[in-house]
């Protein structure tokens, strides 16, 4: 974790900073040291309080004695006086006591050798040395000073006090040691953890890159066919247009129009699938319906069925949902089908089938996808090597050996299994077994009818391309909206400022001028926050960020149905 330079320390980074600080052995040592210091200070404090308390006790004792011996001292009753003084012998810590009369003359007392009593009694401040303390008290009766009392008591020796605190010291010392040890091990653990995280991150990055290159590799296998296919589509379209100029027969015109429509649809779909396929996306499991997904790949798979190869799909209805990464599934299927194609240089049949496989005897429910071909088959001696990365029999420039390793990785990551059956000379069957998910799949939206405009409302269409503008304008007319066109974002702002009563702004993404579509939507959001806006876009990075911001989006090419549905949606939401 690094602190960003120049940015103020926010609570989050402060926390991080503290965490980082905690993770150094130095910090642990400092904490342990502080604990030790606190222990010493605490002990000294307790000792000091103990001594002060002792002094107070001695003062009270002297005072009680002084009050008691007032009469015997005044009237020279030595026997009584002695009784009072001797009573203090019970306390072994009192090592000297003396009673002195008003003139300071010693009257009675005792002392434990080698302690000595002062010859002369006088009042003095309490005194404390390392080993003992001395207090005096006045003998006063009725306001008259009758004498003084002198009392001296030992304090516990240094050694005795030390033993008293030894337990505490041991605990503090142990705690300090524990903290230091824990701190050190935490620090090394923290370091190891950070290293591990770094490693994981870089490995993830590498895997990400590998997946992408696997995809591009699969795609590369398709490109030749794709270019060819587009040429065919364009051929159909331009040819039909030519023919339309030469005929007035309405039936024939309709057929030609339908042909163009079909060609354009196929082209659009193919582009969509190629773009979606090549998109960089993080590994993300979704609950999907395998049938939908396989059917959605038809145009991609069709690219492979050239040179006498035909493709048959048989997908059981009501397939159970599975939880997988859809784009990985697509790559895996392509890899397997590409291998099948490669195994049939003289043509043949590829069959893709999918069905439910109910588990029995404790085995879980699974969905089975089987891809079989009528190709060369796999010789037994290489059968158990085909999943190895970089294992290929296709020679330099043809095979990479990465196809089946991707398939294997995908299946294992999805919690599934893979099986290969192959008879050399007859064909191969690859079976993917994916575990059934208990969740229900996110359905792709079925085709909707055109949603007619509820009322005549004005829409500002922002589009730089005249043809597209004319086409989209026509669609809007058809749905039942009034529309006005602006050729750029800047022009659109001018129209909005003039205050023509627009209900919605429909804008292209990439446009000449200062503002692109996204900027325009931002500007509108700032100045006319209640004005809804819809963006039209081909596939681009910008569209991803627009989607991230929750801006309604139409992906080009779009049908009149989706245009009407999107506008209706946006208007009814605002």
């Amino acid at each position, binding site marked *: 974790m690094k602190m960003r330079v120049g940015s103020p320390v926010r609570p989050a980074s402060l926390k991080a900073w503290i965490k980082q600080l905690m993770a150094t052995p130095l910090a642990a040592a400092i904490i342990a040291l502080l604990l030790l210091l606190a222990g010493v200070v605490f002990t000294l404090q307790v000792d000091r309080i103990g001594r002060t308390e002792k002094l107070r006790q001695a003062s009270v004792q002297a005072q009680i004695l002084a009050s008691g011996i*007032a*009469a*015997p001292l*005044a*009237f*020279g*009753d*030595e026997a*009584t006086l002695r009784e009072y003084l001797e009573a203090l012998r019970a306390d072994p810590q009192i090592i000297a006591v003396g009673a002195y*009369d008003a*003139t*300071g*003359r010693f*009257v009675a007392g005792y002392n434990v050798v080698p302690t000595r009593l002062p010859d002369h009694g006088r009042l003095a401040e309490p005194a404390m040395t390392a080993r003992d303390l001395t207090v005096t008290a006045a003998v006063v*009766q*009725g*306001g*008259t000073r*009758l004498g003084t009392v002198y009392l001296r008591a030992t304090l516990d020796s240094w050694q005795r006090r030390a033993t008293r605190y030894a337990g505490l010291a041991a605990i503090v010392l142990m705690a300090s040691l524990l903290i230091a040890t824990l701190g050190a091990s935490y620090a090394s653990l923290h370091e190891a953890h950070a290293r591990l995280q770094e490693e994981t991150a870089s490995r993830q990055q590498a895997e990400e890159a590998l997946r992408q290159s696997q995809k591009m590799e699969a795609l590369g296998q398709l490109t030749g066919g794709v270019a060819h296919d587009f040429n065919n589509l364009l051929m159909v379209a331009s040819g039909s247009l030519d023919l339309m100029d030469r005929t007035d027969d309405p039936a024939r015109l309709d057929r030609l129009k339908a042909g163009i429509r079909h060609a354009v649809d196929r082209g659009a779909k193919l582009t969509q699938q190629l773009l979606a396929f090549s998109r960089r996306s993080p590994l993300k499991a979704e609950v999907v319906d395998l049938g939908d997904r396989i059917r959605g790949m038809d145009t991609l798979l069709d690219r492979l069925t050239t040179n006498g190869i035909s493709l048959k799909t048989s997908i059981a209805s009501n397939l159970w949902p599975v939880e997988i990464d859809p784009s990985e599934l697509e790559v895996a299927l392509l890899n397997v089908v590409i291998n099948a194609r490669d195994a049939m240089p003289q043509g043949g049949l590829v069959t893709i089938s999918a069905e439910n496989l109910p588990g029995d005897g404790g085995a879980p429910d699974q969905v089975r996808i089987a891809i079989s071909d009528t190709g060369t088959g796999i010789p037994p001696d290489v059968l158990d090597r085909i999943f190895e990365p970089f294992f290929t029999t296709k020679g330099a420039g043809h095979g990479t050996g990465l196809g089946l390793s991707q398939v294997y990785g995908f299946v294992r990551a999805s919690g599934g299994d893979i099986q290969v059956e192959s008879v050399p000379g007859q064909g191969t069957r690859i079976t993917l077994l994916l575990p059934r998910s208990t969740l229900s799949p996110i359905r792709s939206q079925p085709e909707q009818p055109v949603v007619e405009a509820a009322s005549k409302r004005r829409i500002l269409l922002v589009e730089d391309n005249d043809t597209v503008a004319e086409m989209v304008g026509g669609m809007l007319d058809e749905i039942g909206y009034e529309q006005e066109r602006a050729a750029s974002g800047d022009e659109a702002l001018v129209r909005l400022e003039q205050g023509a009563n627009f209900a919605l702004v429909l804008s292209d993404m990439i446009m000449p001028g200062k503002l692109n579509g996204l900027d325009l939507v931002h500007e509108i959001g700032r100045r006319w926050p209640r004005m809804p806006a819809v963006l039209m876009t081909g596939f681009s990075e910008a569209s991803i960020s627009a989607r991230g911001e929750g801006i309604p989006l139409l992906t080009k090419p779009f049908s009149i149905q989706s245009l009407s549905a999107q506008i209706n949606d946006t208007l009814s939401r605002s």
Partner: protein
Amino acid sequence: MRGPRLAVLMLCAMFVGLWTAHARAAPLEQAVKASFLFKFAPFVEWPDNGAGAGKPFTICVVGEDPFGATLDEVVRGQRISGRSVNVRRLGDSGNAAGCQMLFAGRSSSAGYAPFAAVAGQPVLTVSDQKSGVQGSMIQFVMQAGRVRFQIDEGAARSNGLVISSKLLGLAISVERK
């Protein structure tokens, strides 16, 4: 030792004691009694103590004075509850007004009744058993050659005086009535 002569006397009184048979004229015994006389004061509470503030505390001696200069020496420079101490000799029949303490010595005069004049008044009366004077609150007695005293606590109480239990505890006998 820098103490005055009195201290020497008292030292002798306490440690040696009085053992001379003919103690009547013994100066040591009288010195001790003078010292005791003064020291009774702190152990006694007089009523309306505040009224006498500022005026000296007065110890009166009626009849024959057995102490002589010793008593003056004992009280010299001393204070009782912040009041200076004064000794007044009344002779055989002086006026006892203003006295807080009244010591009655022997007298040869007929009808000698030293305490009659202060009956019912808060005056601490003291006498010596040897002198034969009766009716005092505190009376000096000799016991085993030492000066001791007995106390008539009832008399003191009825005259409004409170004698400290510390002093009562030291008396050889206490009349409580």
